[in-house]
């Protein structure tokens, strides 16, 4: 004779054990779905990391008119700094621009000799934005500032980065939804088997006046347990594969910045996968219970 929670847990365990094969199948299918979820999480975290690295390197260059005064320059700098989405502003004076140019052509000093003492380079402002998406707007703002003669930026690159990011997010979201749906069905099927094997017991429970909630309890818990098992399987494989990929990429394509799988990222992934696993499990239970509880 047991208490309600004792009853709940022992029934759940018994039923998972009794239907080992189908429980295992659903845990692994859920595991696969959640593995995809975990991977797509890691991929999107990484893309964000790569983007932010690239974004940090993406600059807008605003060239100032040739004979600009110092007070005008500082006024312009002030305006730029106060523009929304701007993260970093660097002033490059004529002299500095020349220095940079010289440094770039160190081996071909003769090219620069033709300039003589004259410095033809304009002063410029280099601007970095918070996000890639901000670039076109900031460019527009910069163009409006009097004293700015030209604005140059890598328009194509920023546009592509933004759209590739969006596409990857949509595709991985779609994949997760589809496989998640399959996982719900498979868990639902496993629960259905349990319900079928216990239909006799359920009919007696209903006969003696057990509430639907009470009857539902063990099945709901079974779904959750299967979901949690799936989460562990899925995030285990995702973490393992990711570590392997990072190692491979690190040795073959060392210039691609990749996020190392540290404790925080792992916890985030586990959290997302676990919560989703529990929800998938519950959805599976409810899905089959709604149709089969009316015995």
């Amino acid at each position, binding site marked *: 004779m047991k208490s309600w929670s004792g009853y709940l847990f022992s029934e759940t365990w018994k039923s998972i054990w009794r239907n080992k094969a189908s429980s295992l199948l659903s845990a692994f299918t859920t595991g696969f779905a959640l593995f995809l979820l975990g991977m797509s999480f890691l991929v999107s975290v990484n893309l964000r990391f790569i983007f932010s690295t690239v974004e940090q390197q993406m600059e807008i260059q605003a060239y100032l008119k040739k004979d600009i005064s110092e007070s005008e320059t500082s006024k312009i700098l002030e305006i730029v700094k106060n523009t929304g989405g701007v993260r970093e502003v660097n002033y490059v004076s004529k002299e500095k621009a020349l220095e940079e140019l010289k440094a770039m052509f160190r081996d071909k000093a003769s090219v620069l000799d033709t300039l003589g003492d004259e410095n033809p380079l304009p002063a410029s402002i280099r601007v970095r934005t918070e996000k890639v998406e901000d670039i076109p707007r900031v460019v527009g703002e910069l163009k409006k500032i009097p004293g700015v003669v030209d604005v140059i930026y890598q328009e194509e690159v920023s546009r592509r980065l933004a759209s590739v990011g969006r596409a990857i997010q949509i595709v991985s979201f779609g994949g997760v939804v589809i496989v998640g749906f399959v996982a719900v069905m498979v868990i639902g099927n496993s629960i259905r088997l349990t319900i079928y094997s216990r239909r006799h017991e359920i009919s007696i429970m209903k006969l003696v*006046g057990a509430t639907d909630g009470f009857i539902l309890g063990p099945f709901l818990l079974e779904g959750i347990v299967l979901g949690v098992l799936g989460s562990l399987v899925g995030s285990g494989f995702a973490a393992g594969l990711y570590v392997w990929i990072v190692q491979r990429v690190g040795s073959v394509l060392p210039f691609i910045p990749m996020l190392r799988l540290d404790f925080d990222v792992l916890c985030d992934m586990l959290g997302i996968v676990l919560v989703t696993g529990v929800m998938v499990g519950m959805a599976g239970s409810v899905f089959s219970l709604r149709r089969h509880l009316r015995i």
Partner: protein
Amino acid sequence: MISLRDVSKTYSENVRALFRVNLEIRKGEFVFIVGPSGAGKSTLIKLLYREETPTTGQVIVFGKDLQKMRRREIPYLRRRIGVVFQDFRLLEDRTVEENVAFALEVTGTPWRDVKKRVAQVISMVGLKDRKDAYPRELSGGEQQRVAIARALVRNPDILLADEPSGNLDPHTSIEIFELLERANMYGTTVVVATHAQNIVDALRKRVVELRDGVIVRDVRRGAYGS
């Protein structure tokens, strides 16, 4: 306590189980429902614990119209009604004690109360020494006693039995009916659908006879045949 008003039950187009049945059963009564197979006895029993709902008419139990009852109220109706079947309906993987306790456990009774009440009712049906046995180790009569213990463990106001001795030999049947009578003496209203002619004749209780879904006889201290 139980009131059927102009109750008809049709299963499909042409299967008419009950037709315009009117029946009043008062608290504390012991009623036999008799009649040939297919006369509608089981359907009548099923209507009383809301396993079925009538096609037309009203079934009123404890003052409530069962058809208007909400789905979530049904468990609480059933906690006041014990039901016994011909095929016992015990759980094979549980002992006698566990089978009886099951009815209390799944309705959320604290386990201290469960233990005491289960011991009482098992001893009442005379299975004290067999409380750790599994159903397959018991005779048919013993299994039916377990089922009765389970039906009575909650001290129900109504005990329904659908052919409780259908699978039992005459001697064992008598013992089963003695248990039902005992429950009735403690104040439980008992309604039994049965074929057991000799027992109905011997007990001299109220007899309601059904034929083709119609009540053809309702006598206070009746016998199986008229």
